[in-house]
């Protein structure tokens, strides 16, 4: 099993009466309540956490993409990944943005991912979310009735741009380009591994199997509630004739790690409460634009989508409920290790994306958890599924061929005048 340290980057200072005063954490939350100077500290603190995760032994560090969202402050994941590319050297960089339909022309994504791959020495994992309806329809104004078709076309263009060594013309419905000719092109050949984040639609599973991409199930409701969904994923792969390689799947799980079980609730509850009861405060009117999902997906998910929403999201649950129902894995390193092992075995996932920072959790607490995970959890679980080839992992340049950031700056290289 491989471990990725995954950041959402929530804003830390939503007021105590946030749910009463504001309609949603997303889309139309007035940015007057965002303090850019606090934001300056927060970005740097959060990037420190990600960099520290590499030093604690995480295999990859991850950023994602949301827009107009107070719990996800990375409208541009590529900017975050760019800073990490220079400040880290071993960890792979999982970038679970770019929402293809939001970028015009989509070659911009091919270019930026190629830049990240080249700068990082081939450490990039490229994410291609369709994007949530909040992000791509309500914030980015993309038409819900055509967005899937536009996604398919944009994906085709990006992959072709990565693979083609001569200029070509692209005559799409949404993008027409006379000269597609990527400079730079990625280090990884034919292109960086592609991971597709999703929430359980069959179309996405088919898309992943067809292109041999990793499917990353991003859920805030934890591994116990994900079992049916992931069973569906594996059954679908079998039906499509794809293999049952656990590395073809990743699962996002939030964790709260303390030295002992006893101290965990006390340390983490305020931050867990902040996440589930403030960060997931969403307005149903802008949760899904008509046409965002196909009729089949709509029928399959109608209960989850329109009924029980609050309950499934974990709002108004107690610490005990959240822990018992698996929304969060909480406790000592050994307690959490056992649950991650169960997660890995029951969902059959070779990649675990650990949300080690939750809600308002500060650096001291988070870094301590990261260290505990690196020392006491990761080494004990790496063997799981290690006999399967991981075709979804970057093929980075060997360390000996990697550039050293600062080597040509006389001051940082220590050879200056």
């Amino acid at each position, binding site marked *: 099993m491989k471990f990725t340290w995954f950041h959402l980057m929530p804003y830390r200072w939503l007021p105590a009466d946030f749910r009463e005063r504001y309609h949603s954490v997303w889309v139309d939350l007035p940015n007057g309540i965002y303090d850019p100077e606090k934001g300056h500290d927060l970005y740097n603190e959060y990037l420190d956490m990600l960099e520290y995760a590499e030093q604690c032994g995480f295999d990859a560090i991850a950023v994602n993409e949301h827009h107009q969202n107070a719990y996800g402050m990375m409208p541009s994941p590529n900017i975050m990944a760019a800073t990490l590319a220079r400040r880290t050297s071993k960890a792979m960089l999982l970038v679970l943005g770019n929402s293809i339909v939001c970028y015009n022309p989509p070659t911009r994504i091919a270019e930026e991912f190629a830049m990240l791959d080249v700068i990082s020495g081939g450490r990039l994992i490229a994410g291609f979310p369709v994007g949530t309806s909040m992000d791509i*329809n*309500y914030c980015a*104004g993309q*038409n*819900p*009735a*055509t967005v899937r078709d536009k996604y398919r076309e944009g994906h085709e263009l990006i992959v072709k741009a990565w693979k083609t060594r001569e200029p070509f013309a692209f005559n799409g*419905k949404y993008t027409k380009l006379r000269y597609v000719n990527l400079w730079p092109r990625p280090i990884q050949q034919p292109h960086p591994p592609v991971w597709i984040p999703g929430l359980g639609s069959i179309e996405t599973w088919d898309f992943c199997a067809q292109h041999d991409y990793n499917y990353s199930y991003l859920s805030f409701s934890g591994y116990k509630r994900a079992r049916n969904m992931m069973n569906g994923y594996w059954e679908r792969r079998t039906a499509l004739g794809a293999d049952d390689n656990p590395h073809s799947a990743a699962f996002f799980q939030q964790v709260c790690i303390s030295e002992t079980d006893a101290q965990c609730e006390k340390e983490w509850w305020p931050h867990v409460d902040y996440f589930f009861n403030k960060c997931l405060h969403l307005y*149903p*009117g*802008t949760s899904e*634009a*008509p*046409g965002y999902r196909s*009729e089949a997906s*709509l*029928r399959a998910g*109608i*209960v989850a989508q*329109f*009924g*029980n*929403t*609050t309950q499934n999201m974990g709002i108004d649950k107690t610490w005990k409920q959240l822990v018992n129902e698996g929304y969060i894995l909480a406790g000592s390193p050994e307690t959490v290790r056992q649950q991650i092992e169960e997660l890995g075995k029951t969902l059959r996932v070779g990649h675990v994306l650990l949300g080690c920072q939750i809600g308002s959790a500060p650096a001291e607490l988070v870094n301590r958890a990261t260290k505990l995970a690196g020392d006491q959890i990761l080494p004990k679980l790496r063997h799981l599924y290690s006999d399967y080839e991981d075709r979804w992992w970057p093929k980075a340049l060997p360390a000996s061929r990697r550039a050293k950031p600062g080597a040509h700056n006389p001051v940082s290289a220590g050879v200056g005048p």
Partner: protein
Amino acid sequence: MLDLGSGRPKLEVQEAGAGPSLFFLHGAGGVAWDGALGLLAKHFHVYAPSLPGFGKSPSEGLELIEDALELWQLGFDVMEALGLEKPLLVGESFGGWIAAEMAALRPKEVGKLALLAPVGLWRDESPVVDLFGLTIGELLPFLFHDMKSAAARNMSQLTTLMSDKDDRTQAQIDQLIAIFLGFRTAAKFLFPVPDTGLERRLWRIRVPTLVLWGAQDRLIAPSYAELIAKRVRNAQVVTIERCGHLSMAEQPEATAKEIQRFAGI
């Protein structure tokens, strides 16, 4: 089911009544006979096609309508298939936009034009309410003047479809899906800001035009009626009192009477 040939959408066309031809283009809620349309069928031969995703028209047809121009052309294709010549063209809201565009596109093929609170124009000082960014329960007060009216109470039943529990019948689920599929079609042409560029083309409309608006329309302000009338050379504005956006549903008698008067029947 009207079959326009291979590679074309299949459309349900409902008909009622006898008399001069009235070609009706529905709004984002689809065709309903219990309001003004049923009354009009006493004086006209009403033809009411459902766009893909509405009524019994398969939603897959939407993929065969690439852009707005093809939507307006589809209106003429249906008219032609039904053998209609210069009908009274009536459109409500979303359908009002299509009707206006049709009259601007082929002015000689439309007899008269009645626009009931059409969407398609935009003024920053009077933004059209986001049809796609509200729950059904929140949208209703924007559609009606009087939430106690029979039409409003009737539509309020839809809010029960939005349940917190998994207790809906299959019929309710189907109804919910039907609403979404219809809205999806409307969204293809109106999302995210329903400024369709119609304003630049209004001058092309030459036929006698009725612009009818509910005086208390909170979805699309009645001030848009004047904006349209200023650009359509042969337009008359009629305002219906005690009436919200859905004049055909909330004030069926007054709305049908104005359309009859305008048509000279």
